[in-house]
């Protein structure tokens, strides 16, 4: 099985979620993160103290899927999260060894 982590622009969350649901993904876990990268943050000013935040609000989506689904998930996220401007984010894919559903104790792909 694969863990697919995607860092995306916050306002794209709903579109990405819909795209994933459409291809049959049934679960995902989302968190608020801050990203540092090519995209630069906005300038803020407080009583003359100006500064630019290096860290920009992003949303991280984690989806665990069966190996054969991974490609479709990556494609769906890429499509839905893309605006074409710097800061669209990245997708990271890694292998995972096992999954357990707490409620039932099921293991492996059937637990997803």
């Amino acid at each position, binding site marked *: 099985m694969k863990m697919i982590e995607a860092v995306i622009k916050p306002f794209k969350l709903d579109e990405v979620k819909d795209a994933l649901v459409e291809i049959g993904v049934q679960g995902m876990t989302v968190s608020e993160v801050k990203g540092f990268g090519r995209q630069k943050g906005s300038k*803020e000013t407080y*009583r*003359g103290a100006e*500064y630019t935040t290096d860290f920009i609000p992003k949303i991280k989506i984690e989806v665990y899927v069966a190996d054969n689904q991974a490609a479709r998930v990556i494609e769906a996220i890429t499509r839905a999260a893309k605006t074409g401007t710097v800061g669209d984010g990245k997708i990271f894919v890694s292998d995972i060894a096992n999954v357990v559903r707490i409620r039932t104790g099921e293991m492996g792909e059937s637990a997803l």
Partner: protein
Amino acid sequence: MSSHMMSSMKKILPVLLICCTVMLVGGLAFNVQDVAAEDAAPAALKVDTGDTAWILASSALVMMMTLPGLALFYGGLTRQKNILSTVLHSFICLCLASIAWVLFGYSLSFGPDVGGFIGNFDWAGLRGIGADPHPVYGPTIPHEVFMMYQMMFAAITPALMTGAIAERIRFSSMLWFLGIWSVVVYYPVCHWIWGGGWLAQMGALDFAGGAVVHVSSATSALVACIMLGKRMGYPNTPMPPHNLPIMLLGAGLLWFGWFGFNAGSALGANGLAASAFVATHIAACVATVVWMLIEWMHRGKPTALGCATGAIAGLATITPAAGFVGLFGAIMIGLAAGIVCYICVSLLKPALGFDDSLDVVGVHGVGGALGLVGAGLFASKAINAAGNDGLFFGNPKLLMVQLIMIGAVAGFSMICTWIILKIIDVVMGLRVTQDEEQEGLDISQHGEKAYHV
């Protein structure tokens, strides 16, 4: 009763004992006074219920300025880890200053004059301060109402200073500082100007506290923040205000309360109160708009923090002049407040490099002094017969007196503050440890966190 409770009771015993002693000793003294008050009261002047109603309301408004007004205004500007500590500074200041005021502060400030410098102890414990008016301090309101109204000024003045030393001072050192400062600086300065002291005798004009409140506290704050040193990381680490809506709430409540502060200083519900009310409001409006425009041109965007700062600057600046100037004077003073305070907060402070955490000096100090000068320029007897004419109404002398007042109050405040803080520093230290500062004063000094999700 659990054994835990038992041992707790033991710890509390000393406090109980102290309290009881105070009770016994104080009891004798005060009971006599309460009765004495009845005898000593003069009977000639008549209380006007309308004037009294307005000053009662004004007293409540000015108390509300300190808590929750100033407390939240400052609290919203600090980092999240220091908000409770910052709020507590104003909160406890209100309590300590009020208690000291009724015990001896009012007497020292407004009691019978000793050499033009300070009042004596005749009115300590409010001896003789009752329902009858005092001929000078509000001839149409109970003397006790005037005392109480002034109490709220004595409470907010030291609280103003706390903004300059926020986020790094030890709580206990802060308490000692606020307490001693009230006695050593506030009571004399208040007496000089409002209690019939030497500056009053020279004809210095300070309607609602440009010198008594703002210059005294802000120049002291300047000394204090320099002595205390910069916050760790300042100015390299950004320290944005953690909660601007709370800051804006505080600013709004301060504005609301300022009507009590300035219009209440007319000591009645009359034309003078109306005139001071309008001057106060318009100066604040003008200063806000001016600040916004300058910031817009200078930094590219108008900010909410800028507008709020402009408003407070306008309010502080009009304070000493509110009851002496007309509409035009108020507009000019608002204009000056916006421009000059902006320059001080946004350009001068960074250039000079001291760390006045919440800009007490640039807003209140500069504003207060500016307003005293403004009174020297725009005051007019046509507005307030009990006042004087300023430079623009043909009387250059007033401006001189105003400048003397600014110099005297600033100099006196700064020297005293320096001495007080030196002593506290030697005795107990001024600043928290680096670890405590890192962790935040809320946890390290108070064992609390402001927000739990």
